């Protein structure tokens, strides 16, 4: 053991020294090359030249989260390429610098600092888990950067340096529960989730709302990330006979959960109980297998099968760029919005300066979003519709309901905490 420890320490110190040298070198270079033109649209020394502007893409392309984050990277690159093909932003082509967060939260913070301080990027599109966002948040606030964050998440956050392009919890949850209560006559709910902040906070909001409607929560359970044995909880569900299984299971556990649910004889197509999830997008269904999740409902803002012109063009472009067999989930679409929202804000502000882009952001509309119309709220989240999809055997959702109005984002819901 002693030898092992020595070895690791040696490695570490050597690497630290190396990293120090490299970053010092890049710093010196960046200083020498800082452009002195393009002053009028860039008063703060960002990496903007007469014909280019640099942005960052910060996702995990290695490690456990790579499975989920790949789609976001593809969407952001596609959006940037399309914007460039249309002539860029304020006449400047976008160049991206991609960094790998490697599914490790300190690495995310380190890379965020590198992008902001060394590369001086004008915006960063990135992060996926709440943990990675929380890790980079202080960096973005200290060095005044702009982050476009694509994932639906638990809310309870509002930073001047982040635009949240996914839905926060209340948008996703309240519309979904209202719908099952109204349309399916659901009265009792079994809440289930993976054991970390997003499922726990979401279920808290769900429980409050269910009780406000006068209905009952008959069970609430959390399982460690990566848990693969759900037979006991499935037995409990059978015993309690809820109308709705409300599932927020994530990652590899998802696959195990739905396979075992089906094997245990719970046929979701019979809707006794019916299953409502906010965590399974088309991406996850590829791993689960359409036949194992057929009949489940999902409450989200986007499904690949949405039938509108924007979406058809988006899906077509996405498949042309990244291959025919690809699927597009909610988060991937939200990631695609990031570069477009940034472009609109920069053009409204007439400048790349972070402070001006921030001031210009509220009220920015996107009529070309694949999900339909979206608008940035004062609180940096998006007004968006919530939709209910029914899972089919081919791995796609069929949209069966959408809210009539845009749902107002409310990251700090009163009475729900």
């Amino acid at each position, binding site marked *: 053991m002693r030898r092992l420890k020595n070895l690791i320490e040696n490695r570490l110190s050597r690497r630290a020294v190396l990293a120090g040298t490299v970053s010092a070198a890049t710093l010196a270079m960046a200083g020498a090359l800082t452009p002195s033109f393009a002053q009028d649209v860039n008063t703060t020394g960002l990496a903007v030249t007469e014909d280019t502007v640099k942005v960052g893409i910060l996702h995990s392309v*290695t490690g456990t989260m790579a499975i989920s984050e790949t789609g976001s990277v593809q969407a952001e690159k596609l959006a940037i390429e399309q914007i460039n093909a249309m002539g860029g932003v304020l006449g400047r082509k976008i160049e991206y610098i991609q960094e790998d967060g490697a599914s490790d939260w300190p690495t995310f913070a380190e890379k965020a600092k590198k992008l902001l301080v060394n590369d001086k990027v004008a915006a960063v599109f990135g992060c996926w888990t709440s943990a990675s966002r929380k890790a980079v948040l202080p960096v973005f606030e200290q060095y005044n950067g702009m982050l476009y964050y694509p994932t639906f998440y638990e809310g309870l956050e509002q930073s001047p340096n982040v635009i949240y392009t996914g839905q926060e919890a209340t948008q996703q949850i309240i519309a979904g529960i209202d719908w099952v209560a109204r349309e399916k006559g659901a009265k009792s709910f079994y809440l289930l989730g993976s054991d970390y902040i997003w499922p726990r906070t979401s279920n808290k909001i769900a429980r409050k709302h269910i009780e406000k409607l006068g209905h009952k929560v008959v069970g609430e359970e959390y399982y460690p990330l*990566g848990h693969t044995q759900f037979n006991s909880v499935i037995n409990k569900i059978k015993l309690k006979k809820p109308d709705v299984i409300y599932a927020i299971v994530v990652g590899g556990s998802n696959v195990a959960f739905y396979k075992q649910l*089906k*094997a245990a004889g719970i046929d979701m197509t019979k809707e006794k109980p019916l299953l409502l999830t906010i965590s399974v997008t088309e991406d996850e269904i590829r791993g689960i297998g359409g036949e194992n999740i057929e009949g489940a409902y999902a409450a989200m803002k986007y499904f690949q099968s949405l039938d509108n012109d924007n979406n058809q063009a988006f899906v077509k472009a996405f498949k042309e760029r990244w291959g025919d067999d690809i699927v597009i989930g909610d988060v991937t679409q939200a990631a695609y919005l990031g570069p477009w929202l940034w472009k609109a804000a920069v053009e409204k502000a007439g400048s790349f300066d972070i402070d001006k882009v921030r001031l210009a952001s509220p009220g920015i509309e996107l009529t070309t979003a694949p999900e339909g119309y979206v608008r940035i709220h004062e609180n940096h989240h998006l007004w968006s519709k919530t939709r209910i999809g029914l899972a089919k055997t081919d791995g796609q959702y069929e949209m069966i309901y959408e809210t009539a109005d845009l749902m107002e984002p409310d990251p700090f819901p009163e009475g729900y905490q």
Partner: protein
Amino acid sequence: MFADYTWTELGSIFAMQGFAGLILFSVFVLMALGLAIIFGQMGVINMAHGEFMILGAYVTYLCSNFVEAYAPSFFGVYFFFAMILAFVAAGSLGALVEWSLIRHLYKRPLDTLLATWGLSLILQQAYRSIFGAREVGVTLPNWLLGSVPLTDIIEIPINGIFVMVLTFFIAIGVYFILFRSRMGMQTRAVVQNRVMAGAVGINTEKVDRHTFALGCGIAGIAGSAFTMIGSTGPTAGQLYIVDTFLIVVFGGAASLLGTIASSFAISQAQSTMEFFLSGSMAKVLTLLTVVGILMLRPQGLFSLKIRR
């Protein structure tokens, strides 16, 4: 918490819960057998065990795609061939790894730990490069899905029965190989006294290679079977590795009987507690109990008495 239910409901629940425990038991035995063979017989801690399992899962995935495309009429039975192929693939890779890596490190047990951990990272990245970072879905024949309804409430999952039967046969098979065959006799001789075994003409290097390949091959079968109940992705092996080590260490590293006993104890404890408490708490309590028992009995439940 039972006041609201009738006696028949309670009876059904206990039956189903008992069955859930048995399925978990089979899963644990299947996961841990390969590791226990390698650890017990060779003293090598194979950190890449999970990745050998996932190799089996990917072989099953390839088989299912192949059969679906070229021989749909075989689809109902392809799973058996897939398991045999998984065994062969994982076993061959195991033999290759033993020959190229492990055999150079027998005298340095800590280094095998690092080397196999490195191997697990290499394999994960290889899967990611070949099959993509996303999880893949393995299509199963219909007869393996669904459940057998015994009464209105009791329903027995078919894949659970399948895993149980499979585990039973593999355990019997391992028993025969290790205790009733010439290869097993040689293996046990090498474990008891390597130098002496070599002196009476046993090719100890060959025995090592076969043992390692056997352990990896069984991991491949386990991975193939787990496509029915779990996920198939580059890092899915990591989901199993902690439980697997826990079982092997708790059971007593050198004893196959210990592995089975500890699988039984841990699976029953976990599935019972999961029913009465929440999932995370059940895990915490299980781990605490195991840690407590290991403090009192560091050698595990069963230990082999041999002269060192």
